[in-house]
């Protein structure tokens, strides 16, 4: 039996939480928002040609796996990242690394995840969790979505590690090997903020960043006319689910990012960033309001001010606010 002394901490988002918990185990204290910030996780993209659960994909974050990759790279941490073809090999490797005394992060699919809340069990392959021990045929799991640590059996774990579909995990596992004791966070934070700002306002492509939000607003206006009420309501629901549901900690990561800016202001000792964090918080509240009104619409209790026209207007306002924020942040020094 192996059981590492791993501290289970809940987090808003699985990948940030896993990264922050893994680094915490190695004695490098770093909070979830800071990981998200220096990993440049905030993003927006609306991809109408990529259908997920029968509706266009809206994403509020960068590609899965990117946050861990970027955050560990800039922090100068040596990591091991492995993919597998053979499920048996992947489980053997997992056991070997646990014996070495390192907790391991895994990418898994959620449909067959036995301990997961039933309402989230869909074919979604971008979930992350940490394995920190093994007893007989059961593994100890720290899942940042769950309130308490849980366990999972050997065949179940093998199954979720090799779930199929879009972004299939292919047994992906990752773990920090060597973590430096002291890192100067200042240049990393500046780089992270600049990267995020560039992603949001610097890329001249209509489907991503602030332009993506405006594009979505334009499309949303026409949904009831083009798709009919039922489908329009489902499409709107999909946007809201991606915004509020599994692991965004609310408002499509805008709250986490605001918390990061507040911490960054203290570390960098630049007061103007604190003001921007307040703006970001207000922006996040606006997004949350959008989701409340939208959910009323999905409930079919719609009033005129909860129509698609009104909601699209709200999105445009969010886009304006974000453009203002990131135009300021891109000039950070």
């Amino acid at each position, binding site marked *: 039996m192996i059981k590492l002394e791993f501290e289970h901490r809940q987090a808003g988002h699985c990948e940030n939480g896993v990264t922050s918990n893994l680094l915490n185990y190695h004695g490098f204290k770093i909070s979830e928002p800071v990981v998200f910030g220096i990993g440049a996780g905030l993003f927006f993209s609306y991809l109408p040609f990529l259908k997920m*659960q029968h509706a266009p994909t809206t994403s509020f974050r960068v590609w899965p796996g990117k946050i861990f990759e970027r955050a560990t790279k800039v922090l100068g941490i040596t990591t091991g990242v492995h993919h597998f073809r053979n499920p048996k090999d992947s489980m053997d490797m997992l056991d070997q690394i646990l014996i070495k005394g390192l907790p391991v992060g895994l990418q898994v699919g959620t449909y067959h995840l036995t301990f997961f809340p039933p309402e989230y069990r869909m074919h979604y392959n971008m979930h992350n969790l940490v394995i920190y021990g093994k007893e007989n045929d059961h593994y100890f799991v720290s899942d940042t979505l769950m*309130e308490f640590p849980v366990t999972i059996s050997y065949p179940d774990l093998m199954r979720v590690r090799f779930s199929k*579909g879009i972004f*299939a995990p292919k047994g992906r596992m990752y773990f920090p090997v060597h973590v430096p004791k002291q890192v100067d966070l200042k240049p990393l934070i500046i780089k992270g903020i600049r990267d995020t700002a560039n992603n949001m306002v610097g890329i001249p492509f209509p489907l991503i960043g602030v332009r993506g939000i405006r594009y979505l607003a334009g499309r949303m206006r026409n949904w009831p006319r083009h798709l009919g009420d039922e489908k329009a309501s*489902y499409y709107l629901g999909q946007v*809201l689910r991606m915004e509020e*549901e599994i692991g965004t900690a609310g408002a499509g990561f805008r*709250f986490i990012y605001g918390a990061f800016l507040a911490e960054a202001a203290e570390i960098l000792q630049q007061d103007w960033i604190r003001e921007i964090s307040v703006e970001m*918080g207000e922006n996040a509240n606006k997004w949350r309001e959008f989701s409340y009104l939208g959910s009323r619409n*999905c409930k079919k209790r719609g009033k005129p001010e909860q129509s698609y026209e009104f909601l699209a207007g709200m999105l445009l306002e969010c886009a304006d606010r974000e453009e203002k924020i990131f135009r300021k942040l891109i000039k950070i020094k």
Partner: protein
Amino acid sequence: MEDLNRKQTDADHREDNQEVIKGNPDNLFYNYNRELFYSFDKSKGFTKKVDYQYTANQTIIKQQWDLAEVRLNEVKRLVIAGKRSPIAYYMEKKLMDVPILAAYMNHSTWKIRWHLTRTGFKWMKQETLEHYAEIFEISPGELKKPSFLTNFSEN
């Protein structure tokens, strides 16, 4: 207009969260697990809270499951009418779509679409049927002749 609307939202929000605030999780659709949420207030700054999903959020989660059920019933109707094969029904029941099922079966998508038709299903090899049954976690007999099909014939 905007102020009026904001007030209304706040009121709605309070009404929605009354159940949670009262600590009566029975009124929620989903009360399996409490999650971490961030929130922002100008006076307090950013704060964290562990709670059940808000009712507003639970509504949009429920919407997805309700629609999955509607789709399932629609496919069931088509299968009974003899227009699609039982594979279509079990695919929908497992919340899959054609590319996902193709990935699990290690087949191309057009082959899966062929198996969704009744003719394709009739011409399918026994091994393929067993492979499907394994993925759907049912017996091959059940896949060949689902229990909801009383008047389903081989021809």
